[in-house]
């Protein structure tokens, strides 16, 4: 028993070491990377956190969360509005961002969760678009389609490096917490609900409540990602909660592998880099994205999901499972 625990501790360190190395590397990044690349890394982390938070419901819970960007946008707007419209400390905005996003998740979730699968997703798109439309038109409050620019965040996080460290540390904390949730009894139950809702009900699990809880948690983390965006960009605009962004995040999850915990982070990195690099040459960068997706589908004929299911069944899935 003692031996076992030592062994498991050692293997835990082994598993942790590469991540610590990555973290240290990222901590040092501003020392040797040019400013633009530091900014870009921060943006990747922010988008990546958003994608990982989506995957909490999409991959772990198997729910068709088709309009996740809404909660991202709400987090961002919360910070922006607290800073520009109130006399409150900006930090209150950062604390409020996940709370307000979670509340919107709860409200939209309460309406959608009674529907299953595709209908859930479609209704969510409609309700999310409603929120977008309000933000888009309410000039006096949200700035309408112009958005809000020149948001002055606290001095310590206003420089490029400051913003970068803010997003890095917040991302690290969020990932640890999310990892913890994934491996908690709730996380396991959520997985069980994904695999077999009927059986889950039969063993006493309140399926709808589990799904709703999952949505609220995921929305809160999306809100945090949104607040990070404000720090990095210094502005907010309605595109942050437009449905095309939601689609993009789903693609990130698929691209990186939605049965892995950090896959969506990788997917986010690929897409953000693609957009930035290809975007220099043409504004039609989505053509390249389309090509990438087509190649993906052609070379993995069952689609990404099928590929991962396959490797899961072959036993490769065990490693994936552990990574969670």
């Amino acid at each position, binding site marked *: 028993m003692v031996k076992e625990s030592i062994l498991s501790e050692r293997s835990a360190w082994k598993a942790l070491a590469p991540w610590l190395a990555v973290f240290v590397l990222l901590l040092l990044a501003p020392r040797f990377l040019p400013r633009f690349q530091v900014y870009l890394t921060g943006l990747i982390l922010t988008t990546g956190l958003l994608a990982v938070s989506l995957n909490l419901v999409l991959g772990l819970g198997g729910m068709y969360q088709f309009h996740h960007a809404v909660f991202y946008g709400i987090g961002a707007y919360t910070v922006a509005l607290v800073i520009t419209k109130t006399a409150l400390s900006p930090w209150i905005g950062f604390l409020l961002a996940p709370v307000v996003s979670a509340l919107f998740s709860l409200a939209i979730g309460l309406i959608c969760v009674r529907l299953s699968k595709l209908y859930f997703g479609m209704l969510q798109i409609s309700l999310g678009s409603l929120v977008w439309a309000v933000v888009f038109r309410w000039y006096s409050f949200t700035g309408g389609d112009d958005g809000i620019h020149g948001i002055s965040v606290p001095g310590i996080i206003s420089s490029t490096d400051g913003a970068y460290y803010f997003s890095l540390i917040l991302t690290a904390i969020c990932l640890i917490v999310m990892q913890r949730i994934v491996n908690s009894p*709730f996380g396991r139950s959520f997985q069980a609900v994904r695999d*077999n809702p*009927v059986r889950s*009900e*039969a*063993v*006493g699990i309140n399926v709808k409540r589990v799904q709703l809880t999952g949505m609220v948690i995921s929305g809160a983390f999306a809100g945090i990602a949104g607040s990070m965006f404000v720090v990095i960009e210094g502005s907010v605009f309605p595109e942050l909660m437009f449905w095309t962004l939601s689609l993009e995040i789903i693609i990130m999850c698929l691209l990186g592998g939605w049965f892995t915990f950090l896959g969506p982070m990788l997917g986010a990195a690929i897409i953000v880099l693609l957009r930035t690099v290809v975007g220099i040459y043409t504004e039609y960068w989505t053509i390249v994205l389309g090509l990438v997706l087509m190649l993906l589908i052609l070379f993995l004929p069952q689609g990404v999901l099928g590929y991962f299911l396959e490797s899961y069944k072959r036993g490769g*899935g065990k490693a994936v499972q552990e990574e969670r």
Partner: protein
Amino acid sequence: MLLVENLQKSFDGFMAVSDARLEVEKGEVVAVIGPNGAGKTTLFNLITGQLRADGGRILFKGENIAGLSPYLICRKGIGRSFQVVNIFSRLTVFENVRVAVMSCNKRTFSLFSKAKETSVYETGEILKSLGLTEKADRISGSLSHGDQKVLEIAIALGNRPELLILDEPTAGMSPEETRDTLELMKLLSRERGITILFCEHDMELVFSIANRIMVMQRGRTIIQGEPDVVRNDTHVQEAYLGGADEGI
């Protein structure tokens, strides 16, 4: 313990269950038999809430549970297995049972403790008593059909049910596996005092374990009584022999 009175359920005008009556006393083993399509599985689905009854009453420990959600019925102490294997096929055998145990221990919503350290002992005990310990780390979808049927029962036991409902527990099993399952049911009934309600096509098994037998035909309860009474009942003989749906 369980009392079902003129229960009804129709699907698009077809009366799957038109008048089901059933009584299960604490500690009993009650079998439901009847030709295919008699409404046995529908009856079970009505009792455990997967389906909603059109009429009638289902009393469990004196309380009407008709119309409650399956998870609430489960929490009242009714566990069940399914006729067609219905497990968490992408999770390991251990996780399959643990999900039920965690739910029973009200741990489903704990967010920050470690699932790995939750309900390990209880889950292990259940697996041990059903002989699944060696397969604990296998992905349950890769098990043989017989083992999956046993896992069905293991998951149901994870909720520490007072009343265990088994829908054709030995369907598709080899003779050996069937014998093992019969032994298991006897063990659960005698040593753990779990009340068992099951339906089954294997008449040998039914008559060797059931205290009482309820016979259904075309959605109706023909009779419920002790094995000898049922065996000699003319209506039952008609249902099975005269009706010629299936040999006894």
